[in-house]
């Protein structure tokens, strides 16, 4: 091996501590990239191939009732590839050993064959047989949450009739990757599930013989979905069609899409932030590492080594460190991506995962990292090489020793000599001081980006489920009912207060933009549901006109005063012109709001309600749910479930629980891992800063020891500087962190939820703590090293 190569490996070994710290920073940055992008890629590819292999339809429509022979007519329409008609029924379930309300959606599958579209993936058991009338297939998530197994029986209430069914299969469907009740914001697998029965028995039970009420359609390649939607709507109008929609409006797909958009934004933002920080640090660390080598560079040059050769030598050193970092980042990233994808599987019900590790991502990440490292090396080597060797070989202290302004102002006279040394040293090398401060600030800031999300989610839940929505139970009716129905609810023992809501499925249009959502009619004096204004204060509803969340208004491009078209997607499917009155603040979901009476008036219906909000409690009052135990609550649930008009029951607490269980859990895990990697980077930065300080000033400090300073006195100078740097860096880090968090939040807006920017003291404290602890540990290591300074070496080679 050539002497220069030997030098390379020996020095790498000698620098192992610092090299490891640099590599750590790279590991953090690279792992975030690999993990985020690969997880996203895996989920997207899995979804796409699931859709393809299990033939998810392109258009969907539900209707009241149409004769089976209409199917042929639809198949004849130009552009149609395949049609699947189905019977779909709302069902409420009585599970053995549980009083909790469970509702679901029961969809038919062909009697004897696989469905042509929206096929099921059978996880265990088999499909239901059309010859038997008691066979049920349930979704895997529902089965898991309720511990249901093959051959278990459940009692289903279909169309008011009780029916005992046996589970013969557990399945997944591309139609319900995101298995969520209509109108709900989060899935609640325990209380809502999708399930399937063979067509004949379901038609019989649901009084749908010879007819269908749901249709899935696959388009021929190139056919226009919008045209087909218009045709279907025209054709199905007389059969009570509720408006055909494409995948963009298909509930599961839309939620999935929104989540993927958010995941993509996070998967890009985190790496961009982390890699930039890592790159900045790499740059600082590498240039300073090399500048401590400037005497050796000068010696090599004095013997006739060319700049390129010297540069390459140091480039190799940096490449090796970077290489180890990249490989480590790859390994960690892959491992995390696998874990994370699997975690997402709990949430998105995919039958399989197609892990995607795109070579492009790996190459791009390596290329970016290596170029940054090389650029930094080049700059530093160039700086060292541009000095004539004669000068470079002198001690690197042509520093102009001046009294700096603080000193001139006489402010430092109160300080001890060591204190003055610290300040002078920092002021004498403002650039190095600044780069250390920036590095430490980055470490602090990067911690905040992952950290703040926990508080943000808590705030989101609090605003949604405590301020805006105050009910304990929400009951939705099978058909709109009159307000008289509220009395029967109110009379139930344990119900303290009841309020009605009218929810209408609508398509909102403004200019060429439209959005499918639900329009909620809320009573003017509503106590259990509040609409919040931009300052998160409850606002009164205007006598007429719409209120839209800011998000929805901006999707539609509408502002207060604009006239929107409200196309009702049920009943007569009328369209109305309604002005947008004001905008609301809402962190979860995007529903439109209107005064209940105004909505009833608009729809030309009398007092009509589609769901009821209930407050539980022993007394008739608004806020009396305290002292009301679970036992009593479940009695209420049972009574509610037995009411024939009740289609679904949702319990606020379980929504909150399942929100944390699913959405919050996957997102928080993602951000938690990022926080950890941020911590790794932070530690790497702090440790590096300390090591560089030590190597830049080791000789000077050893000389002080020779002059009779004690170990602690010498350590005080260095540790004091570290402490001062850290204290200066932390506030700067807070600013940076707040800025990065803002960027993150802006990127995380989806129709599902908008994470607010909530920076609580604990976020700041945590970030500062990580930096402080890292500084403390690094400081201790430095203190220990200072005890082993080789004084003899100093005496041997220098004045």
């Amino acid at each position, binding site marked *: 091996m050539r002497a220069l190569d030997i030098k390379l490996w020996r020095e790498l070994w*000698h620098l192992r501590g610092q090299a490891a710290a640099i590599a750590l920073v790279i590991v953090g940055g690279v792992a975030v990239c690999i993990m985020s992008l690969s997880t996203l890629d895996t989920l997207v590819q899995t979804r796409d191939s699931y859709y393809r292999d299990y033939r998810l339809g392109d258009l969907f429509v539900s209707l009241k009732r149409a004769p089976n022979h209409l199917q042929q007519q639809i198949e004849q329409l130009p552009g149609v590839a395949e049609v699947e008609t189905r019977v779909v029924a709302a069902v409420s379930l009585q599970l053995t050993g549980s009083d909790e309300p469970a509702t679901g959606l029961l969809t038919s599958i062909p009697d004897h064959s696989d469905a042509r579209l929206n096929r099921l993936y059978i996880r265990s058991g088999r499909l239901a047989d059309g010859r038997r009338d008691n066979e049920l297939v349930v979704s895997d998530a529902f089965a898991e949450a309720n511990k249901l197994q093959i051959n278990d029986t459940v009692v289903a209430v279909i169309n008011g009739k009780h029916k005992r069914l046996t589970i013969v299969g557990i399945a997944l469907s591309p139609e319900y990757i995101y298995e969520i009740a209509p109108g709900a914001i989060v899935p609640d697998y325990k209380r809502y599930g999708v399930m399937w029965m063979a067509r004949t028995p379901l038609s019989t039970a649901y009084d749908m013989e010879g007819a269908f009420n749901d249709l899935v359609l696959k388009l021929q390649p190139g056919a226009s979905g919008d045209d087909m939607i218009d045709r279907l709507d025209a054709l199905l109008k007389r059969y009570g069609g509720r408006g055909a929609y494409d995948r963009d409006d298909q509930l599961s797909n839309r939620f999935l899409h929104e989540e993927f958009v958010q995941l993509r934004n996070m998967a890009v933002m985190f790496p961009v932030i982390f890699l930039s920080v890592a790159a900045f640090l790499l740059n600082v660390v590498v240039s300073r590492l090399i500048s401590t080598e400037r005497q050796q560079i000068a010696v090599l040059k004095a013997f006739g080594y060319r700049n390129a050769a010297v540069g390459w030598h140091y480039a190799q050193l940096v490449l090796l460190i970077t290489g180890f970092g990249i490989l480590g980042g790859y390994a960690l990233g892959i491992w995390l991506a696998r874990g994370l994808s699997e975690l997402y599987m709990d949430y998105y019900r995919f039958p399989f995962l197609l892990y995607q590790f795109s070579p492009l991502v790996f190459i791009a990440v390596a290329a970016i990292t290596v170029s940054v490292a090389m650029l930094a090396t080049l700059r530093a080597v160039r700086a060292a090489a541009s000095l004539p060797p004669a000068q470079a070989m002198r001690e690197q202290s042509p520093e102009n020793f001046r009294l700096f302004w603080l000193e001139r102002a006489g402010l430092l006279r109160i300080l001890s000599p060591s204190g003055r040394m610290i300040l002078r040293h920092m002021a004498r090398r403002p650039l190095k001081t600044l780069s250390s401060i920036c590095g430490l600030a980055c470490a602090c800031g990067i911690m905040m980006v992952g950290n703040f999300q926990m508080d943000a989610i808590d705030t989101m839940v609090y605003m949604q489920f405590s301020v805006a929505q105050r009910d304990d139970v929400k009951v939705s009716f099978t058909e709109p009912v009159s307000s008289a129905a509220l009395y029967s609810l109110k009379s139930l023992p344990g119900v303290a207060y009841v309020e009605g809501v009218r929810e209408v499925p609508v398509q909102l249009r403004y200019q060429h933009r439209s959005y499918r959502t639900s329009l909620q009619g809320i009573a003017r004096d509503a106590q259990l549901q509040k609409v919040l204004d931009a300052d998160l204060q409850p606002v009164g509803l205007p006598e007429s006109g719409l209120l839209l969340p800011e998000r929805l208004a901006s999707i539609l491009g509408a502002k207060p005063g604009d006239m929107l078209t409200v196309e009702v997607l049920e009943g007569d499917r009328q369209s109305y012109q309604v002005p947008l009155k004001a905008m609301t603040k809402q962190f979860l979901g995007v529903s439109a709001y209107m005064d209940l009476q105004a909505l009833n008036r608009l729809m030309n219906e009398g007092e009509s309600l589609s769901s009821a909000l209930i407050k539980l409690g022993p007394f008739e009052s608004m806020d009396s749910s305290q002292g009301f135990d679970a036992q009593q609550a479940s009695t209420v649930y049972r009574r509610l479930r037995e009411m024939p008009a009740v289609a679904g029951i949702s319990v606020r607490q379980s929504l909150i629980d399942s929100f944390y269980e699913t959405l919050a859990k996957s997102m928080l895990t993602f951000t938690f891992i990022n926080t950890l990697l941020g911590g790794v980077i932070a530690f790497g930065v702090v440790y590096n800063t300390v090591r560089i300080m030590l190597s830049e000033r080791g000789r000077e400090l050893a000389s002080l020891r020779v002059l009779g300073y004690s170990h602690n006195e010498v350590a005080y100078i260095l540790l004091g500087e570290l402490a001062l740097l850290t204290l200066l860096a932390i506030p700067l880090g807070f600013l940076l962190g707040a800025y990065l968090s803002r960027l993150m939040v802006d990127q995380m807006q989806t129709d599902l939820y908008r994470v607010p920017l909530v920076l609580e003291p604990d976020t700041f404290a945590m970030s500062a703590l990580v930096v402080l602890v890292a500084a403390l540990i690094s400081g201790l290591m430095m203190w220990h090293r200072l005890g082993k300074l080789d004084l003899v070496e100093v005496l041997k080679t220098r004045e």
Partner: protein
Amino acid sequence: MAATDRQCVFHAAELSKVYDMGEVQVHALRGVNLELYDKELVVLLGPSGSGKSTLLNILGGLDTASSGTVRYHERELTQATEKELTHYRRYHVGFVFQFYNLIPSLTARENVSIVTEIARDPMSAEQALALVDLQGRIDHFPAQLSGGEQQRVAIARAIAKRPQVLLCDEPTGALDSSTGVVVLEALQTVNQQLGTTTVVITHNAAIAEMADRVIILADGHIVEVKQNSHKKPPTEIVW
């Protein structure tokens, strides 16, 4: 044997060097005229700050003059590009510094190899170390060597490529008298055996006694050039 009979290796004319320190200008060299000849051993004598190192660094292509010219054989160093200077240092000059400047991560042998690997017709590292009487410490790291031994490694490193000129800046400056003598012996051996033109800087007048010629610098000027009729071997020098 008259020096003028010999081939002229260096020819410097009106060499000046000014360090611009902002508020003040430091004149390190103020018009130096100088010739150095093949195979001679010259001692540059002068008080600290008189410009010795500056002159040596310019001769060695480590630094450039503010004005004036330096010729090495037929080549003009003052006009040379960075690339030409590198070439010059690589194949023609050997340096020995006061503070050795060994690479701490390499052993004695490897420190020499770092130069022989890029030279044209080098001796082996072992040979070079044998010349300075260090056969026994070949695999020691700088930190395991005494100051005098480190300096001898530095000399071995400087002469291993058989340079035309050997430039030594206070090679004994950091050493005690007896260790210094060993180093000076090594320099003399190289000068005699290889015929390398050798310039040794010192502010120690006693060392001048081993030189063919002594050039005395003061305040950036050459104040005196002495021809040594009787060269003393280093072993007889004491300070």
